[in-house]
């Protein structure tokens, strides 16, 4: 004959067992493990560099140059820009690359394009076409683009959006 007190005891015992099991086997997440809060903080703590300044002060937040911006709300909490850099090719054009991390357990499909700018922040050439980068689950992928112009290119701005 079951009584209420027996059932309560059993439930308590079950709960304790579940807790023990949870303590004994901590959940291991496959790498990379992304911390979006720390990533967000890194923007605030980033050293000040060149920025695109709007003609009307305060109308658009200053956009840091020589950076990679995830411009799409759909992937901003899913993809992290792990590193980026640029260099000159043997012909004097500029090659930009950005290493992207897919923090999710699902394959992602993103696209990037680069604006190459002169020292006076004028466009050195047309922005590149959108280039697709496939990011399997929890993996890294590299976006890269080359400029056409040579000496005129002084800075760049990379935009990343969800693939279309």
């Amino acid at each position, binding site marked *: 004959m079951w009584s209420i007190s027996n059932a309560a005891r059993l439930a308590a015992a079950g709960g304790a067992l579940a807790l023990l099991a949870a303590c004994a086997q901590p959940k291991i997440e496959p790498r990379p493990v992304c911390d979006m809060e720390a990533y967000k903080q890194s923007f605030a703590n980033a050293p000040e560099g060149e920025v695109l300044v709007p003609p009307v002060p305060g109308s658009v937040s200053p956009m840091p140059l020589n950076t990679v911006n995830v411009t799409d709300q759909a992937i901003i909490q899913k993809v992290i820009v792990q590193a980026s850099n640029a260099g000159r090719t043997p012909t004097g054009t500029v090659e930009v690359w950005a290493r992207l991390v897919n923090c999710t357990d699902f394959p992602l499909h993103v696209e990037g394009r680069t604006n190459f700018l002169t020292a006076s922040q004028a466009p050195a*050439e047309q922005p590149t076409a*959108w280039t697709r980068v496939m990011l399997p689950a929890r993996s890294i992928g590299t976006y890269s*683009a080359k400029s056409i112009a040579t000496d005129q290119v002084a800075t760049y701005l990379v935009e990343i959006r969800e693939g*279309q």
Partner: protein
Amino acid sequence: MIETRSARRLTGRLAAAGLLLVAAGACQTTAQVENASGTPTAYQDVNSPGLVQGVGIEAQDIVSMTDVMMRDMMSNPQLANRQPSPRVILDSQYFQNQSAQRLNLNTIVDRLRSGLLRAANGRMLFVSREAAEMVEKERQLKREGVTDVGTTGLTQAQAGADYRLTGRISSTEARRSDGVIDRYNLINFEMIDLENGLIVWSNFYEFRKGAQDDVVYQ
């Protein structure tokens, strides 16, 4: 009460008149103009997929692949950093479509040539073989004295070329019985040395698409 009756009578007459008009309209044989706006033409971004999407090469693929190839060629020292500037033939003569899709190859080659020509700004020179016959006729007219020599002077012959673009589009396709198609497209570009046959530059663009139904490419 009287007013209500007369109102009913009036309503009945109006309904009858309406029916007659509808019947007359149905019998009318003259086509009426449907004076309403149609679906407006919508410009679409050439860099992004449009309203109709299939598993083949589309506008955004052509824009993307030619942009990547152009930028890659401009970063190749043999093509873009040589003195004197190399002469290149860039047309669809040796660019083949061996894929499952019908495609006008000139959309790829023309965009690539125009983009390169503007980007190179003298770092590469482009020779037109498509215009060779036209040029030859004009040369004859000049030499026969039918026309004067123009302002740029005469040359011994038409320009010879150092390199020529070749390429190939190929595809493989898997099709399920319910109409789902999975197609892999490979577009390969090569620049051939026209004296010794060496491939001095090569790059490719590939993609794979899957869709429930194929669309017709024309």
